[in-house]
């Protein structure tokens, strides 16, 4: 069970059982949905941007412990950050995850320029890397946040 203990760390289960920043944000906050067609996980990311800063963020949807915990931790780390800072975090998190995703999906590995960013609690998700299919769970909220930021910055241009 050593590997399992590594996957289901207490902090992950804690975020899963008591997700932070759960709920919805009203308009004009941006709403974006993400699906994991494999397992049916669904995430809805609401972001309220102000002056290029993530003023507020909330998460809806449902999914497994990894996707829920990852989303919950994500809200904590990006809330209050500027878009640029948030993007660096997203980048760093994906780098931590991407090792296997590269192999499975053929995406080019993101260049490694952000290795000095401190991911805090998120480091607990490192165990996921040993379970390639779970990487999609861990990155679902993050990809949806990326899409959300893209949509907002493109429409406001």
């Amino acid at each position, binding site marked *: *069970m050593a590997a*399992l203990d590594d996957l289901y760390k207490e902090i992950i*289960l804690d975020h899963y059982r008591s997700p932070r920043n759960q709920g919805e944000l009203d308009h004009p906050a941006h709403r974006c949905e993400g699906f994991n067609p*494999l397992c*049916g*996980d669904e995430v809805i990311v609401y972001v309220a941007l102000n002056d290029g800063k993530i003023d507020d963020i909330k998460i809806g949807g449902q999914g*497994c*412990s990894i996707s829920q915990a990852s989303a919950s931790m994500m809200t904590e780390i990006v809330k209050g950050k500027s878009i640029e800072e948030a993007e660096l975090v997203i980048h760093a998190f994906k780098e931590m995850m991407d090792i296997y995703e590269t192999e499975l999906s053929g995406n080019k590995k993101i260049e490694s320029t952000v290795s000095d960013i401190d991911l805090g609690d998120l480091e607990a998700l490192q165990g996921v890397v040993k*379970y390639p299919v*779970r990487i999609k769970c861990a990155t679902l909220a993050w990809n949806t946040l990326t899409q959300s930021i893209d949509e907002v910055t493109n429409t406001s241009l």
Partner: protein
Amino acid sequence: MNLDVNRIKQDFPVLQRVINGKSLVYLDSANTSQKPDSVISAMGDYYNNSNANVHRGSYQLANEATAILESARDKVAGFINANNRQEVIFVKNATEAINLVSNTWGRVNLNQGDVIVLTELEHHANIVPWHMLAKEKEIEIRWVKVGDDGHLDLSNFDTLIDGAKLLSFAAMSNVLGTFTPVKEMSERAHTAGAKVLIDASQYTPHSQTDVQELGADFLTFTGHKLLGPMGIGVLWGKEEILDAMPPFLGGGEMILNVTKEGFSTNDLPWKFEAGTPMVAEAAGLGAAIDYLNEIGMDKVRSHEISLMDYALTKLQNDFGDSITIYGPKDATERGGVLSFSFEGAHPHDIAQILDEDNICIRAGHHCAKPLMQVLGVGATSRASAYLYNDESDIDVLAEGLRKVRDIFNPN
């Protein structure tokens, strides 16, 4: 009378596999079944001895390959009690079979404002092709509801089917395990003037299938759930209906003549089999049918009933209110499929933890998202059994679920 499961397990090479010191407990047969030795070697034998393109050659290998393909068709025709072999069309999977019907029969016979009836328990394979056609032709889809007992709610069926051109539904749910009342629904649909397509992908592996008795116009299933290989599926249809349909894919095999100006189609069944067919897969499917016939589908079914009975009781006893099992509670009303929710643990996590003990179940929406919505969940865990499973597999599953509980609800 009972199946000798220990002996049967020996016929399946993959079941001998040991990972991390633990033997394989395969409980995902509704997803895809494992294959007996005889099926795997039928394919190997074909390539080792007789590989050639069919219907085209005048040398011995080509004749052997043709005989292998066509005798597999005979076996399928016999297995489902088709009136004749021309009614058996080989396709790549059940999904293609349903798309074939929606693209040919559907395109010709359905027009703006027409109605087709599906049920809420359908697999995406029996939903998406109709969505595509509905969008193209502006037809209406009506849905038979699923009741709390996991059975179809037929209370308003006559209203739903009234004026409909087609009823298309699964004979057995891949999530709930429910057997639907195929014969009754077919009859009522026919009375209302609708044609009937039966998605028997889950049904054929578990139950004697008799297309004449079931009363359908089309019936589809897929080889890989029936001990056969991937890459082959079957569309059965009534000869006069198939005859009147336009072709689906165009190319070699399906033509009688081709000029620069046009073409004419070949006779059934080849009219619907464009291009080089999957001969090895047909050989494998034929061997799978031989294997099942040898054992007897009645025995497969009665084994399954007693195994599901055991599983339903065992899981309820061991986990009480912590487990929610979907679908009919009576094992005689369902096939070997057992979907459940387990308090506090997401299906994906459950499957992951079980995998640590080499127990294979499926977690997810099972390609039945509309049904998930009805059940009010995003996903379920699903253990599904077949003739090579026995009570010990269920015991190991229960053991594994205890570990899940230890991680997620350790108090």
